[in-house]
């Protein structure tokens, strides 16, 4: 039972990382109708810059800010130089261009940081654990990730639902021609939204860095999971992203913890751990196939196809 609680919390923590990625990606898609395969590269940029700053300055906060800023700047440059020219193009051209961006960024970090993966140490003040229940210790850093995730999503909700900028973003998602005709600077709005999404991806990268090897290509695994999240949630829907990120995070973590154990009921230990691990990796894709077979537009999807 204790283990189960820990696994659920681990799942929530993973779900928060996915959510930070998914909210940016789904905003960009919902508002600009843009497929951005390079969103994972922004995650990677955040992780690399964050890990480097933490190693040099020994300050996790500085690292987090630096990672977010680097990803936001990279995102802004991508939007100004490449994406801006692609809004009127087919999705196919967007896939090709952002695929090119992935190759570029993966090689760029190899050039700058070398082929050896970086590690990131936890900050001392977050390295310990606290008792969440009597006799159940849980790592502080993971709790902090969950807290930051909740906070950021709360702020994002306020930004989108309660501010003028948010109103424009929502209006842009609903009908971009009308909002342009009303005198809103659409190009600026797009640049802001894209950089905002990039910044969230950078934050996700910094917060995931202590759990991962910071290496070239690290963005792709999380990118594919993020796509699964936004497709299950319904593309363009923030509410859908929240529900499905937490669902996927928990389902994936529990699957990895318990499917190998379950498989041992029927199989010998060696093939059980093998099959269990394979099933756990496939679980979320199966979940996605089932959701889409029943609701092709995703759980909360509406107008976008």
């Amino acid at each position: 039972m204790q283990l189960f609680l820990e696994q659920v919390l681990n799942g929530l923590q993973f779900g928060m990382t996915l959510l930070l990625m998914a909210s940016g990606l789904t905003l960009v898609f919902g508002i600009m109708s843009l497929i951005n395969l390079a969103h994972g590269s922004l995650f990677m940029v955040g992780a690399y810059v964050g890990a480097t700053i933490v190693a040099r300055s020994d300050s996790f906060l500085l690292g987090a800010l630096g990672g977010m800023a680097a990803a936001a700047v990279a995102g802004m440059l991508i939007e100004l130089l490449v994406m801006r020219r692609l809004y009127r193009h087919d999705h196919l051209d967007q896939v090709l261009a952002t695929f090119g961006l992935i190759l570029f960024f993966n090689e760029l970090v190899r050039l700058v940081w070398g082929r050896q993966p970086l590690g990131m140490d936890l900050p001392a003040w977050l390295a310990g654990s606290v008792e969440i229940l009597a006799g159940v210790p849980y790592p502080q850093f993971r709790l902090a990730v969950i807290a930051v995730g909740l906070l950021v999503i709360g702020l994002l909700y306020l930004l989108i639902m309660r501010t003028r900028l948010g109103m424009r973003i929502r209006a842009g998602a609903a009908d971009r021609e009308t909002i342009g005709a009303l005198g809103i600077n659409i190009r600026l709005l797009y640049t802001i939204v894209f950089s905002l999404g990039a910044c969230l991806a950078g934050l996700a990268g910094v917060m995931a860095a202590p759990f991962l090897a910071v290496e070239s290509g690290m963005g792709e695994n999380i990118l594919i999971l993020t796509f699964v999240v936004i497709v299950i949630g319904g593309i363009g829907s923030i509410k859908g992203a929240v529900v499905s990120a937490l669902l996927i995070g928990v389902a994936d973590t529990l699957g990895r913890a318990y499917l190998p154990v379950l498989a041992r009921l029927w199989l010998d230990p060696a093939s059980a751990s093998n099959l269990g691990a394979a099933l756990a990796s496939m679980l979320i894709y199966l979940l996605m196939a089932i959701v889409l077979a029943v609701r092709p537009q995703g759980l909360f999807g509406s107008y976008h196809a």
Partner: protein
Amino acid sequence: MPKPPRARFATVMLLLLLALIPPLAVLTENPFLVTMFSRALIFALAAVALDLVMGYGRMVSFGHAAFFALGAYTVGILSTHAMQDLPLAFGWTGSNEALLAWPLAMLISGLYALLVGLISLRTSGVYFIMITLAFAQLIYFIVISLSQYGGQDGLALWGRNTLAGVALEDPISFYYACFGLLLAVLYLLRRLVGSRFGRVIEASRQNDVRLRALGIDPFRYRLTAFVISGALTGLAGALLANNSEFVDPTLASWMQSGNFLVIVLLGGIGSLIGPVYGALALLLMEELLIALTEHWQIILGPLLILVALFFRGGIYGALRRSSG
């Protein structure tokens, strides 16, 4: 639709050049060129198959690596069992005969394409891209879990298949086997897209509603095209397993699916022959850039971005326009 003369001329020259690669390689004493170009032909075959669904039916599959890997692993597994005389199923010990292994590779890939198509063709646009990607990830994790066939490390073949008893170990015979198959597929698909079937596929891309109003259910046509495309990609996978005598999970990775997409777009979508140009162009670009720098992807990436921004219609599109 008559093709403009310059594009047709270029295609004839391209195919002629491909036919002459082995003697040229022998004459210039660069025998490695034969295997290198076999690889390009195999990727061209897979990309032509992808172009059938992507170019004509706007079914943007980001999961064709699954069919590729299934074809390759079929050949790899059958051959391993045949060489070690291990029973595979029902006491059958696999086979090293191409006439058996290659159609079986197409059958297995085709069946998986049927399953994927049944679910994913209910969606379109971005959802279709993502769901095909997810189905490819399933295959990726399945082949990684096949520990008896190498798992993550992949599986080295004992040798190439034999074609009707004739060994394909000689790179030149294997090259011509690939070239012959590519030509046959190009011819058959050209006939297919020109037929009533092809018209329905194109019409379903342009206006699904009108097609339904005419009393034609596009779903079955699109599904059939998807299965044909998957089976042909499986054939390409079977050939690649023979070419490199090695199969591994990266064949099913999403980068592989991306590669096929890049080849189609670089060569020219919706032309069938375009991907052949694309496969050769990508191969030549990679070889040139690798010779230039170890960090060649830092150049290839921006080149692909430029293609997406300014070179719409790809190489074959440009050829067609220039004769316009």
